[in-house]
């Protein structure tokens, strides 16, 4: 048993060493640096909430070089920010296959603190489940909760498996109290879009909504406000209408509506069924792109 413990100890240290080759420190806030991952050659991904300034950002690479970084884009919805760096010679993350994600698997959270080297904490993947939407409206492909201590400075760093492969990046900012890991699939999708456009497009209708329930138990959303030049306003929706379905699917709360307003909804007409003065009414709405900076 003693020997296997030593082997286990060496294996963990090896995993940290391997995973650590893609972990950087991100200097974009006062006091303590956050962490990031060399996701692709010349591309660093970190937790967006740790970016407190958009200029004069520097990165400490695994070989302790300090290099300037350009903010390529940020998505508060999924708490992902993408930075471009000149990191010739540095490696890029190898992400673990989706199938290897399993509750109970050993995992390590890594971070880098300036030039002071790698930092690690050990735990397990605590829970894995399906897609979810963050409180800021970002779509995440898979819910991953790590059971690891998130010490200061580890935000934006990777969760790795015992092979040293990256499972995603850790952030404490998307859920109350406990951290979550943003999976590689989400990072890949958001990174592609941020590199191409600099932001994540989200659809919007330009209405204020409130859930209502009819005596027969059916739910809907009453229109409380309409932007005159917004997509709903242009479609002819009025205050007081009750929205029942979008694309044929019932909508009973604002979450249901958000589900129809992913980035690819922009510019695609959809059918809306409403009640106006007790009469059924069908309209066609074309979601616009949510103005940046707004919610």
């Amino acid at each position, binding site marked *: 048993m*003693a020997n296997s*413990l*030593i082997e*286990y*100890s060496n294996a*963990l240290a090896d995993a940290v060493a391997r995973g650590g080759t893609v972990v950087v420190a991100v200097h974009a806030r006062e006091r303590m640096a956050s962490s990031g991952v060399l996701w692709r050659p010349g591309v660093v991904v970190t937790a967006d909430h740790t970016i407190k300034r958009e200029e004069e950002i520097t990165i400490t690479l695994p070989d302790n070089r300090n290099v300037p970084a350009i903010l390529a884009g940020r998505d508060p919805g999924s708490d992902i920010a993408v930075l471009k760096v000149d990191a010739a010679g540095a490696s890029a993350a190898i992400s673990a296959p989706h199938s290897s994600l399993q509750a109970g698997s050993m995992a390590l959270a890594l971070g880098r603190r300036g030039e002071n*080297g790698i*930092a*690690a*904490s050990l735990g397990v993947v605590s829970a894995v489940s399906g897609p979810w939407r963050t409180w800021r409206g970002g779509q995440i492909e898979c819910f991953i909760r790590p059971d690891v201590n998130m010490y200061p400075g580890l935000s934006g760093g990777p969760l790795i498996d015992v092979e040293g492969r990256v499972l995603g990046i850790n952030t404490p900012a998307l859920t109350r109290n406990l951290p979550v890991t943003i999976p590689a699939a989400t990072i890949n999708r958001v990174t592609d879009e941020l590199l191409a456009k600099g932001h994540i497009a989200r659809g919007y209708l330009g209405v204020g909504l409130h859930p209502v329930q009819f005596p027969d138990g059916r739910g809907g959303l009453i229109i409380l406000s309409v932007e005159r030049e917004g997509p709903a306003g242009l479609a002819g929706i009025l205050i007081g209408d009750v929205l029942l379905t979008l694309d044929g699917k019932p909508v009973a709360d604002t979450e249901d509506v958000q589900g129809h307003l992913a980035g690819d909804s922009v510019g695609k007409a959809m059918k809306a069924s409403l009640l106006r003065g007790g009469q059924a009414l069908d309209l066609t709405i074309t979601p616009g792109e949510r103005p940046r900076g707004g919610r």
Partner: protein
Amino acid sequence: MFEALAESLRRSTVQIFGRRHGTGSGVIWSTGGLVVTNAHVIDGRDCMVETHDGRKLEAVLVKRDPRRDLAVLRVSPDAPWHPAIIGDSQNLRVGQIVLAIGNPLGISGAVTTGIVHATSRKEWVQADIKLAPGNSGGLLADAEGRVIGINSMIYMGLALAVPSHAVTRFLARALAGARAA
């Protein structure tokens, strides 16, 4: 999987009654009866040491260094006395397994496990391991059961231990001073 290691390290761990309130832990450092602990565990010159098997021994303070938070005591051990094996705290790897043995909250010989968190600060071994106040002065060991540090404080959830090489240096100074005096 840590049972055998924990059992042998427990033999090298003592409980120290050195303050009016609460207890700390200590590490049996030498066959000659030296026990190393934290300075903040000891109030006066004399204290009591209790071995893992419940023997109570009188101890005399040899040297106390509050700045480094280290103290060394001398006892006259009667029968079984199990000095710890001292490891190399200068070549630690982030991620390697560590064990702590101590008497947190009065529970004697409690074991916790974790890993080396970072090696960025030469003056501390930083460990991702759960400690409680009574762990003070107790040992932090590697996967081979060699002592690499003396647990001293908890900082933002992180365990900080005085590296064993710093303890060795402290002992060399303390014992030289004791002989001269």
